Each structure stands twice: as structure tokens, then as C-alpha cells.
């Protein structure tokens, strides 16, 4: 009989409490001895490792069920408590119920009419809004708590104080009286089933008095196995240790009660027992010290086994471990396609794909079997139709095995080029963190990936490792290929643009190739196009006299479709007030007509990763993902080949400013210093005008900050406009390849104001930041303004302030990542099974409606045009241009 024969559809799960009778009924032994094993290592009768609790030693039969280790499920025991104790998990509920009921007659503190009203209401809620019944129960409990005199017996009600975790006091006029657990239990016993139901309990499954323990279940030994160290010393589980404590105190308490010991001693022991029970359930209960092991390590009790990242839920139940996976360091490979991943031979020989032998692949499979596990296109196992597996590692003569296989056998063959695998980099924050790639088996020991897929994985090559999974079934492979292949993920729903695309040298290269002055000879053009995999004819040269020359724009145009039309402003655009469009003297206006780059340069705005409305975006939207992959694989290679021929580097002389520019910078900075001094003197004279909503001091700070920021900006502008033509750092900043003009200004002109918590540096000594300054000095230098540039060197004081600002940045990133990680987790848990149905509604698993139309407009942001379903301007433009023909 298979599992599906006995399985039944589950309708609901209901949780309840174990009654003392339930606990005794399921128990196989009453545990009274606080010991585990005797000197000979034999489990002690009625001890914590009693044989009846289930066997954990191989070969032994269980004394209860007769099964051996694998079969015996383990059996519970129990401990009879000498006095009742509060179950710490229900302490809050017990408190609420005590407050809502009469101490004398045990009735729910509601007048008759009200009681009946709420009973009816509860009935109705259970029928129509069962989810709301606990809210109503809360309301009833709260209402009952407000009554100060019992409507039934007329007794005055005392206020009850709850002290965490498990202590309750009654506030009498004479002072607080502690409520003992047995008193609490007897009060809860008096509650009727109807009253309990009104307070949100199902009394058949959970009588309130069951929240006070009189019997404690002892988990089977399999749940707390003892381990034997190599030295032969037995070491017990933390739970067993805790149970030993409980039994020891429980027995002491029992003896003292029987011997008629003084009340004080009994109460002390009782309290100690309560402590042990509380820590047995949760050793991180606030308000009490955690129970510790002899070594000082806190014990890992029940709650700790379940809670948190290493707990049963997150680690064992949601934590999946898999076969057919690999992990290694990644390194870049600009030659393979974005759809590919380079896999080392060593890994390809360990990861396998099961392939059924048929008459078409029989010969090929025989070769694989002959090659065996050690030669690359080989195989590791053969599975015969009867399910028997043949391990190819051991037989010497694989030839005969190869000859003996027939159609219908299955071969677990090595990974080979073209296989579909899933590739992943943690943290897997969005769907592009796991994508399907095609295998490319390569030498060496690292996974290789195309640089354009770095942005979606957020990968770099400073030691990053990535994981790889091999789908084993045809369905899984098909699904991966259709939904998860890299080229299908270029357009991201996050950006409304391509998340993949050019980075760094791709952008510099695109710019260098397509700028006006670039011309190449026939030889060079052929070289470039061949290395980028172009297989068409060279176009007519743009210049024929005195020698044949091709422009970079001509070469870059070869990868556009012949009917491609597009215009955009490139990253180097200075955003002049009136754009001269095609006539732009900076060549910043990109025009592509009929697949020809007429004007403009290709830079970040055209091919950059994460750039909406770029050439790349348009190509994919108009021509599909195959076009996107083709463009990234081929054209991008051209940009890299070009940058290879010209070279791109920065050196110290790129940070050199001409003397007169340096003078200008110092004038600007000097002026700022003067203005700051002037502001300070105005402030000192009390003539400073207060800004609305600020104090005088804040006003001064803001004004000084503004002044200094302006100075830094001006210095940066001077630097930007005075750097030599052909400065590569400037080229990279302007094209968006790497770095910004601000970075450049920091290097050559002035580092500027350092800030801590968004303000100038103010912390340090009394009235000053460092002992080098006078107290009360408000000047720029004394509050973290760095006059120097990185190249000039920072003086020690500037260096110190710079380190302060830098440290804050580091701390911020560390804090932010941990906080956003936690938020991410919670969002994912809350939203994981929400889905968009075919009717456009967004629904939960039970079919409840969360949104009547996805996003109000039903538009998939990945397929949208600037968030809209259609871009009318673009369509009109296309219709007009097509009609003009």
C-alpha cells in the first residue's frame, strides 16, 4: 500500500491543550528518578532514560512497542508535579482570565443581560465571521475586567497584578497578596464551559485550568538523545539536564510537604520548581536569569530549539538541501554569451543528467559509458530498466558494459555544452538572482560568467562564489529555458528597463568607438569586426581619399536591424537650455535612422545596465529578447575589442591641474573662507537673521554649510573644465563608465566638508573638535572642512576628520543591510503566495481578493513603456515615419 492510498485530504488543523488525563494516558512511565544511567551504563528504571521511552541504541528492541531504532517512534513519559505550576506560555492568558472572572464564585463578570447579548453575538460571529470571534472574545474579556462588583455573588473584585513571567498578586487594601498556582488553578476550574467559550477558548480542547500544570509530559529519549564521547564519557542533552533539575526539585518538594516542613521552605521550593519549568520551556524568558550548563553556556531548551535562524522551522523545515549542485569562485569571461556559464571540467564530471537511451542516441551513449566517470564527455552510472544501478567507477572493462546496454536503459551522463542549469548568487533578493544558463565546459576551476550579467546577480570578482543547480527532468529544463533563461530576464520589472547591459569598459569603449574623431583602416575594421563575431560585408568606407577609412559610427551601426530608428540624449549631454539636437557640438544627440548611427555617441544612456529608454531597451522591446542577446553578445564585444586596441588607463598626470587652475581653486576656497569668517562675525555681533524654523546657531550652521558646499562645487567645476583634453578619468566620469565629476574634484581640487550625522563635525572636546583649535572656533577648518585634494595630500587634522566621516559611512551600510534584510524576509513571508489570476485580480491562496486589478491598471511593469501599457508618442512617430516612405 502506497502513501497515497492511505492519505486523506486535510480539511483543517485545530490546536488545543493536553489535559492532565491526556498526558497520563499517553505516558508509558511515571518518571521519579532524577538519574539517567547507572555505573554500568544501564538505563535506570523510572529514570529519564527509561527503556520504555523508546530505544536509541541500535540492535535493541523497544520495551514498549517492540520495534527497533528506525521503527520505534519514541514514547512519552510523565512527571507528577508535587504542586501545580503555571505554564509560562499561557501566563498572559491566565492573567486575562483571572481579571475577567469573579474570585469568589468564578463567574464571568458580566451582568445577565450583557452576558446573553454577547452569547448571541458570539453565536452569530461563529456562523458568519468566524475569523472575527477572537476579536469579540478580546472585547468581552476586556469588558468583564471593568466590572468592580460581581453581579452574581455581589463580592467586591480585587485588582490583579501580573509580574512577568509567572507571578500574580491580588491588590487588597492591606497590601498585595501573592496568588499561589493552586489557588489560580482552582479559580480557573470554577469557570464554566460557556464562560470559557466567550473568552475565546474551545473548552472541549482547552479547559482554562489546563494552563496550570499538574502533570508534565517527558519527551521520548529520541528527542533528547545522550551522546557518548570517544573517551567513553556520556554527555546528556540540554533538555535531559533541565528535566533532571525539575525532577530533583519536585521530589524535594514532595518530601518536604510529606514531612510537614515549614510553609516558607515549601514556598521557596515551589518557586524554584516554577523557575525550572519556565526555563525548561523557554530559557530566554525576560525577567529571569537563563539556566546554565556547568561550563557557563546557557541551556538550549524547547523554545530555543524552534526559534530563530538555527531553529527547527527556518533551518530544518524551510531549509532545503539538494543534490546535483555545485559551488565555486566566479571569474569573468567576456567571450562567452550572456546565456552561458563556464563550468570547470572537474564539476562537469560530477554533475550528471539522466538520459534515457533510445535508438537515436544509443551509439553516443555507448561512447559516454566507455569514457566512464574520469574522461569528460562520460557517464557515472547506468540505470537498468529494473531500477538497478551500475556504478561505472569500478568495472575495469567498460567496453563490454557499453555493448550490453539497450534502448530503455538510462545513463547518468556528465554535463556537456548546451545543457540547461540554474545559476544563483546569494543574497537572492529578486527573481534575477537565479537564472537559467547554458553550460559551457571550460578548463580551470572557476565558474565563468559574462560581465553583462553581473548587475542582476550583483556579482563582482573579488572572491565571490556562486551556486549551480542541474535540473533533472525534461519538464524542469523546459520550464527553466522558457521562464528563467538569462535573455528573458534582461528587462526587469524593477526598473522598467534592462537590468543587464554595459558596465565600465563597455561604456568607455562604446564612447571611444563612436565619437566623431574615430576612424579606422580596412585592416583595423576587419580585425575589430571579426573579433566581435560579425559575419557580414564591410560597408562602403566613409572616406576614400587619401586612404579608405571607416568611422566608428559605421562599425557600431552594423549590429542594428536595418529598420531601426531611435533618438536619445547621451550621458555626456550638458543639458544645454536649448538643445541643438543633431547639430550638438558635443555629439551628445544620438540619432539612429534605418539602422545607421547618424550622430551622437554610444555611452551609458545608450547601452548602460539599468538604463530605461536606452537603445538596448528599445531593441528588446521592438525586436525581442533574441535581439537583445545578440546585441549584447556581439556589439558589446566590438566595444571591448576597440578599447583593447586603444587602451584606457589613468595615472598621476590625469590628476594634474595647470598652475593657473590651481590658483583659481585656491581663490574660490579662500573666498569661501572669508565669507565664512564674515558670517561668523555677523553672528557674533548678533546681527544674523534667523531662518524660519531654525535657531540662530542652526541658521549659522546652514549658511556656512551652503557657502562651503558652493565652494567645493565651484572648485569641482574649475577642475572639470581645466583638465587636459583626453583625460581618461574625465572621459569615464562623463560617459558614465565609472566615477563622477565629484570624485574627480576630490582628487584634483578640494575634498570639501566632512560630515557626521548630516552636520559639520562638532563632536570631540569641550567647545572644540580637537585640541588644536581655540574653544568656540566656528571656522571651516575647525569643523571638518578639508581644503586639500587627495593628490595634494591631507594634513593630519584633515585626515582625522575624513576618517570620522568615512567611518560613519561604513557603519551606516552595515546597519542598513541588516535592517533591510529583515524587512525583506518579512515582506517575502507575507507575500509569497499572492498571485495575479487570469481575470487580472490579485488573490491570496484562499481566493480572497487583495486587488481588483493588479496595480490598478493591470500593467506588467516589465512589459510597460514608462509604466504605461502603450506609448502613444512612439507609435505615432513610427506610423508617421513609415507613412513618409
Amino acid at each position, binding site marked *: 500500500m502506497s502513501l497515497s492510498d492511505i492519505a486523506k485530504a486535510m480539511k483543517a488543523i485545530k490546536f488545543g491543550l493536553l489535559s492532565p488525563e491526556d498526558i497520563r494516558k499517553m505516558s508509558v512511565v511515571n518518571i521519579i528518578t532524577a538519574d539517567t544511567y547507572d555505573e554500568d551504563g544501564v538505563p535506570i528504571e523510572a529514570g529519564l532514560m527509561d527503556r520504555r521511552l523508546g530505544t536509541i541504541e541500535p540492535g535493541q528492541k523497544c520495551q514498549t512497542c517492540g520495534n527497533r531504532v528506525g521503527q520505534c517512534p519514541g514514547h512519552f513519559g510523565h512527571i507528577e508535579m508535587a504542586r501545580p505550576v503555571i505554564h509560562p506560555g499561557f501566563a498572559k492568558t491566565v492573567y486575562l482570565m483571572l481579571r475577567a472572572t469573579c474570585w469568589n464564585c468564578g463567574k464571568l463578570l458580566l451582568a445577565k443581560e450583557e452576558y446573553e447579548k454577547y452569547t448571541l453575538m458570539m453565536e452569530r460571529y461563529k456562523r*458568519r*465571521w468566524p475569523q472575527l470571534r477572537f476579536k*469579540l472574545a478580546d472585547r468581552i474579556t476586556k469588558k468583564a475586567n471593568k466590572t468592580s462588583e460581581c453581579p452574581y455573588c455581589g463580592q467586591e473584585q480585587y485588582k490583579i497584578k501580573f509580574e512577568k513571567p509567572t507571578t500574580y498578586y491580588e491588590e487588597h487594601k492591606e497590601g498585595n497578596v501573592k496568588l499561589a498556582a493552586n489557588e489560580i488553578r482552582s479559580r480557573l476550574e470554577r469557570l464554566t464551559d460557556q464562560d470559557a467559550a466567550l473568552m475565546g477558548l474551545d473548552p472541549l480542547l482547552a479547559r482554562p485550568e489546563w494552563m496550570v500544570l499538574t502533570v508534565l509530559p517527558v519527551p521520548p529519549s529520541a528527542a533528547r538523545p545522550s551522546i557518548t564521547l570517544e573517551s567513553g564519557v556520556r554527555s546528556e542533552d540540554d533538555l535531559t539536564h533541565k528535566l533532571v533539575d525539575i525532577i530533583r526539585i519536585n521530589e524535594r518538594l514532595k518530601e518536604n510537604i510529606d514531612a510537614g516542613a515549614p510553609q516558607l521552605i515549601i514556598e521557596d521550593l515551589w518557586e524554584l520548581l516554577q523557575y525550572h519549568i519556565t526555563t525548561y520551556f523557554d530559557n530566554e524568558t525576560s525577567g529571569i536569569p537563563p539556566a546554565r550548563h556547568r561550563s557557563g553556556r546557557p541551556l538550549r531548551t524547547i523554545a530555543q530549539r524552534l526559534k530563530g535562524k538555527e531553529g527547527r522551522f527556518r533551518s530544518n523545515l524551510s531549509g532545503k538541501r539538494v543534490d546535483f549542485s555545485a559551488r565555486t569562485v566566479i571569474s569573468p569571461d567576456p567571450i562567452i554569451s550572456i546565456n552561458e556559464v563556464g563550468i570547470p571540467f572537474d564539476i562537469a564530471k560530477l554533475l550528471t543528467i539522466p538520459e534515457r537511451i533510445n535508438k537515436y542516441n544509443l551509439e553516443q551513449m555507448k561512447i559516454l559509458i566507455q569514457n566512464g566517470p574520469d574522461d569528460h564527455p562520460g557517464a557515472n552510472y547506468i540505470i537498468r530498466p529494473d531500477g538497478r544501478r551500475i556504478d561505472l567507477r569500478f568495472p575495469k572493462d567498460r567496453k563490454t558494459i557499453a555493448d550490453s546496454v539497450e534502448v530503455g536503459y538510462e545513463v547518468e551522463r556528465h554535463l556537456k555544452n548546451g545543457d540547461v542549469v540554474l545559476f544563483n548568487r546569494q543574497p537572492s533578493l529578486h527573481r534575477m538572482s537565479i537564472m537559467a544558463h547554458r553550460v559551457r565546459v571550460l578548463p580551470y576551476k572557476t565558474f565563468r560568467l559574462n560581465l553583462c550579467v553581473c548587475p542582476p546577480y550583483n556579482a563582482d570578482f573579488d572572491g565571490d562564489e556562486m551556486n549551480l543547480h542541474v535540473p533533472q527532468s525534461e519538464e524542469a529544463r523546459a520550464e527553466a529555458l522558457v521562464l528563467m533563461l538569462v535573455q528573458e530576464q534582461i528587462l526587469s520589472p524593477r526598473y522598467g528597463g534592462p537590468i543587464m547591459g554595459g558596465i565600465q569598459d563597455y561604456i568607455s569603449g562604446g564612447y571611444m568607438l563612436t565619437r566623431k574623431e574615430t576612424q579606422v583602416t580596412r585592416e583595423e575594421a576587419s580585425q575589430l569586426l571579426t573579433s566581435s563575431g560579425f559575419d557580414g560585408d564591410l560597408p562602403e568606407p566613409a572616406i576614400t581619399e587619401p586612404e579608405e577609412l571607416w568611422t566608428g559610427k559605421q562599425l557600431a551601426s552594423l549590429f542594428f536591424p536595418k529598420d531601426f530608428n531611435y533618438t536619445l540624449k547621451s550621458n555626456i549631454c550638458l543639458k544645454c537650455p536649448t538643445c541643438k539636437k543633431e547639430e550638438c557640438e558635443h555629439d551628445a544627440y544620438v540619432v539612429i535612422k534605418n539602422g545607421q548611427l547618424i550622430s551622437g555617441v554610444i555611452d551609458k544612456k545608450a547601452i548602460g545596465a539599468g538604463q530605461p529608454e536606452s537603445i538596448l531597451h528599445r531593441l528588446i522591446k521592438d525586436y525581442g529578447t533574441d535581439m537583445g542577446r545578440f546585441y549584447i553578445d556581439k556589439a558589446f564585444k566590438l566595444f571591448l575589442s576597440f578599447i583593447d586596441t586603444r587602451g584606457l588607463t589613468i595615472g598621476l598626470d590625469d590628476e594634474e591641474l595647470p598652475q593657473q587652475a590651481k590658483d583659481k581653486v585656491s581663490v574660490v576656497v579662500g573666498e569661501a573662507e572669508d565669507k565664512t569668517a564674515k558670517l561668523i562675525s555677523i553672528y557674533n555681533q548678533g546681527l544674523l537673521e534667523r531662518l524660519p524654523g531654525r535657531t540662530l546657531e542652526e541658521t549659522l550652521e546652514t549658511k556656512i554649510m551652503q557657502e562651503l558646499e558652493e565652494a567645493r562645487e565651484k572648485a569641482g567645476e574649475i577642475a572639470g573644465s581645466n583638465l587636459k583634453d583626453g583625460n581618461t578619468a574625465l572621459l569615464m566620469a562623463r560617459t558614465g563608465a565609472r566615477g563622477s565629476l565629484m570624485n574627480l574634484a576630490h582628487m584634483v581640487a578640494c575634498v570639501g566638508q566632512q560630515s557626521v550625522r548630516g552636520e559639520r563635525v562638532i563632536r570631540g572636546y569641550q567647545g572644540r573638535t580637537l585640541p588644536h583649535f581655540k574653544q568656540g572656533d566656528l571656522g571651516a577648518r575647525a569643523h571638518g572642512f578639508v581644503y586639500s585634494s587627495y593628490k595634494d595630500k591631507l594634513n593630519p587634522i584633515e585626515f582625522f576628520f575624513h576618517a570620522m566621516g568615512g567611518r560613519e559611512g561604513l557603519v551606516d551600510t552595515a546597519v542598513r543591510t541588516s535592517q533591510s534584510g529583515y524587512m525583506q524576509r518579512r515582506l517575502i513571508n507575507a507575500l509569497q503566495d499572492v498571485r495575479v489570476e487570469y481575470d487580472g485580480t490579485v488573490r491570496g491562496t484562499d*481566493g*480572497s*481578493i487583495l486587488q*481588483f486589478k493588479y496595480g490598478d*491598471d493591470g500593467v506588467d511593469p516589465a512589459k510597460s513603456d514608462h509604466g504605461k501599457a502603450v506609448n502613444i508618442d512612439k507609435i505615432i512617430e513610427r506610423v508617421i515615419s513609415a507613412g513618409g516612405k
Partner: protein
Amino acid sequence: MVKFEILKHELVPQFEILKKEEIEALRHTYGIKKEDLPWIRRSDPVCKEIGAKPGDVLKITRKSPVAEQSVGYRYCVPG
């Protein structure tokens, strides 16, 4: 204190209590029970204002930054 007319505030969308037949039609278009709609409590200021009772279904018409106008429904529950 002057009573504040919440229904006239520009941030409060338009509410309307559906008739029996309209509810049936709604249940039919989405293939749902009334309980599958998002819930609104009777104590919600708007419910008090328009007199919605538990069991009623409200139609909400609001301006939407992406779709100009969007329509939603709420199932009124006690509490």
C-alpha cells in the same frame, strides 16, 4: 466642535452601498463569496457616516495615479 464632513474631504474616495442584485452580479463576475472581498469594519468612520451595516458591500470609486479611476469593493463586518 463643528462636525467634520469626512465624505467631502478630497482624500476620502466615493463610497456607495450596493443593492442586492448588484452584489449578486459582483459575486458572479469574480466568482467569489462576499467574505472573499476585502473587509471594512462597521466602526470605520465612513461606514458610520453612510450607515453601512454588517453584511453590506460597499463600492469605492477613487482617483488613481496610474489608472485615472479605479473601483474597489469592501465587505462590511462588525467590530
